[in-house]
């Protein structure tokens, strides 16, 4: 990590570089640059302090990070921790909050909100911030705010923001490829690769013969959800469905349809995997011969989705993109994958002989 904010306190960046030939995009190169070795900083603290510090440090999904740390450390120290109602409530609040925030930031230009919708979205975010701090006053109002946005309605009107978001996400330049969902069945392979290759695997995760994707769309496909629309609209629909499910969980109307937290002991350590808003997050911890925590790795979902040969790169490379649409279309695709770092899209002229 660089030394000061002035030098660019660098918390990572996804760079998408498209090269064109004859006014069409010929290829797309994706680079996901991240600070490395950050998780090892956690080892400077007492095990009991680490969950709160992980939550503070990785604040975008702070609840997911804190919960993953708590479960992984407990497993590494030979204890079992059951996911409790408070964990699930916090994860549901974070999922709804982050999906809503991402839609506002990434899509409010393509699907502008009217004044009432904007007020509802802001009030919902404010309530969710309080829920994340375990203040539940006003939680019931989430229902009305989501309804104002058309989220969770059985048949939202075409004019509802949720319907406008789905319409705005349509893009026929990209093929409709079903995702290879990263799932709990992959945990053993992922943890084995982390044990063997450490930070190199964190930087470039891959599984043999696979191109795993993680996040709302992959989760929806994995559980056979009925998604309306086609192509990218289905990706947006998956996010909106998760927002409605998270709302229902918060209001006690539903139970989680897939496990949100997995954890367990491994040789000389423990792990936890948490389904964060952006996908499956791993914390893996090993102890030394003195039973002290000695090695800590965190693998974030963005690393899978924006791997050099990952699902984003694969979709982008198969697109039929005219050059004048390339920057916008690639940026919209990136917004659907929702990276947890800054994202830059560049379109360059190819060198002609």
């Amino acid at each position, binding site marked *: 990590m660089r030394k000061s904010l002035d030098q660019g306190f660098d918390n990572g960046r996804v760079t998408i570089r498209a090269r064109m030939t004859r006014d069409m995009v010929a290829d797309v190169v994706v680079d996901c640059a991240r600070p490395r070795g950050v998780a090892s900083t956690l080892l400077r603290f007492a095990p009991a302090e680490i969950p709160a510090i992980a939550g503070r440090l990785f604040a975008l999904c702070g609840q997911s*990070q804190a919960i993953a740390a708590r479960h992984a450390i407990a497993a590494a120290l030979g204890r079992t921790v059951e996911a409790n109602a408070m964990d699930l409530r916090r994860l549901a609040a974070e999922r709804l909050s982050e999906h809503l925030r991402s839609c506002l930031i990434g899509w409010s230009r393509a699907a502008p909100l009217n004044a009432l919708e904007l007020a509802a979205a802001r009030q919902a975010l404010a309530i969710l911030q309080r829920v994340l701090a375990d203040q539940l006053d006003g939680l019931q109002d989430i229902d009305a705010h989501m309804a104002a946005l058309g989220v969770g309605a059985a048949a939202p009107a075409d004019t509802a923001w949720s319907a406008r978001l789905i319409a705005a996400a349509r893009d026929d330049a990209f093929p409709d490829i079903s995702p290879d969902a990263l799932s709990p069945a992959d945990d053993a392979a992922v943890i084995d690769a982390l044990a063997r290759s450490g930070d190199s695997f964190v930087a470039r995760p891959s599984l043999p013969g696979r191109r795993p994707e993680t996040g709302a769309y992959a989760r929806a496909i994995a559980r056979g959800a009925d998604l309306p629309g086609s192509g990218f609209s289905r990706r947006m629909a998956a996010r909106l469905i998760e927002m409605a499910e998270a709302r229902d969980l918060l209001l006690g109307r539903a139970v989680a349809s897939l496990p949100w937290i997995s954890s367990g002991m491994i040789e000389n350590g423990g792990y936890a995997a948490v389904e964060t808003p952006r996908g499956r997050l791993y914390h893996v911890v090993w102890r030394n011969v003195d039973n002290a925590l000695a090695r800590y790795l965190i693998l974030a979902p963005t690393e899978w989705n924006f791997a050099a040969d990952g699902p984003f790169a694969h979709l982008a490379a198969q697109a039929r993109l005219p050059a004048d649409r390339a920057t916008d279309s690639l940026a919209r695709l990136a917004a659907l994958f929702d990276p947890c770092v800054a994202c830059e899209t560049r379109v360059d002229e190819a060198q002609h002989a």
Partner: protein
Amino acid sequence: MCIAVPMRIEAIDGLSARCSARGAERVVSLDLLHDSPLCVGDWLLVHVGRALKPVSAEEAHATWEIFDLMLETPESPDRLDADAQKP
């Protein structure tokens, strides 16, 4: 990973603020904190140019202490990393 940085508000202009941390300044969007009462001197948690939420000065300083530890940590301290394959 999803690292957000605490920054102090130096000036507010509508839905944006000039914020600083460790001698550097950034213009930060406040559009998601429209209803939060914010003043010069308050601290914000900032991610990719947007304020996520206000934080206390105490929490901001505690977070920066962790960042300082991160800055002292070698880039790739994982013990097996040196043997790992290069791309």
